[in-house]
């Protein structure tokens, strides 16, 4: 513990610090960034799915639906359940237009 690593989200170009033992999603939220979508924060909903392009990390438990067997080896994980062991380069999935610009959405989502 005590180490701090650098996480770079490639799609947005944003960079943030993440302490050893801290989840990548929590570190991002604490620094006020929104480059990875935030869902349940518990490995269940798959909202914060990312690909780790480079770097080592540990994982907590994640839903098999969103992280099927073998996906971890490909770096396809949930940001709320990975803990860096070094600097990371990550990439989140393509965002629907406008999502990064606003947390809010319209009723169209329901239709």
């Amino acid at each position, binding site marked *: 513990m005590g180490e701090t690593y650098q996480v770079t989200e490639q799609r947005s170009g944003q960079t943030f610090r993440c302490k050893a033992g801290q989840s990548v999603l929590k570190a991002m939220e604490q620094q006020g960034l929104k480059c990875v979508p935030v869902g349940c924060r518990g490995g*269940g909903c798959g909202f914060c799915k990312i690909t780790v392009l480079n770097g080592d990390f540990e994982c907590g438990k994640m*839903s098999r639906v969103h992280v099927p067997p073998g996906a971890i080896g490909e770096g396809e994980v949930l940001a709320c359940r990975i803990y860096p062991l070094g600097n990371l380069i990550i990439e989140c999935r393509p965002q629907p237009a406008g999502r990064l610009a606003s947390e809010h959405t319209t009723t169209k989502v*329901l239709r």
Partner: protein
Amino acid sequence: MKKGVMRPGHVQIRVLDMDEAVKHYKDLLGLIEMDRDDQGRVYLKGWTEVDKFSVVLREADEPGMDFMGFKCLNEDVLGQLRSELIERGCEVEDIPAGELRDCGRRVRFIAPTGHAFELYATKKQTGKWGVGNHNPEAWPRGLEGIKATRFDHCLLYGPNLDETLDLFRDVLGFDLAEQVIAPDGKRVAQFLTVSTKAHDIAFIHHEEPGKFHHASFFLETWQDVLKAADLLSMTDTSIDIGPTRHGLTHGQTIYFFDPSGNRNEVFAGGDYHYPDHEPVTWDAEELGKAIFYHDRVLNERFLTVLT
């Protein structure tokens, strides 16, 4: 018309890690651990509930809801409803007594939304925890955390709301208490009751079947909701939104997630419904206010984050 279904009786929730889940539901939410079985399932309940359990946790590698059960008046009613479900074309599965500990036989069916529901009539009654029913005190000492009083309802996401309403109304005797109607006339949310509560089960339209939005637990007062929010912050628990008030049902609420990402709600207050009441209708254009009465805008997470 009432058909002998009394109330939501239990929900079985899948969790990724049982120890973390028990800590959440017991120490934080304040449910009482009542039993465990040889499958490793953990049985809990809110302290005011008379039956032995209402929440069953099962460890699995994906979170979500296995099934929700409704308690019926008696075994005759259960048999009658089983026949009516079959006449209606539902495939029913008979679960033998004892599969859930101290619970009688259960009749399981899949609703058109893709969710598994069960009817049952018999469950061991252990009484209100810590107070009983003879000269009972106001509340028991020794409750933990948020001190949730009872499992109240679930909100589920799936397709085929019309068919689901027909089934719940015609066969099971539920009423439509509240609804959200889109500009094209399509019902996109329905809150059903089998009691005088504003909802015993709620559905929101979603293309993917069988999704779980939340299980909800009842608190007495707005102050209890605020204290719940304090405890969620003290324990660094993932909050979705709140404390706030709903437009739909007008309950005072906070939403948060269990450690596996299943959403929970604790709420107080809310409207009531009798069978002669017309449904309350919200227009989909007012959905922000309908769901979050003060913010009057939706957060995307509430609509799309499901297990």
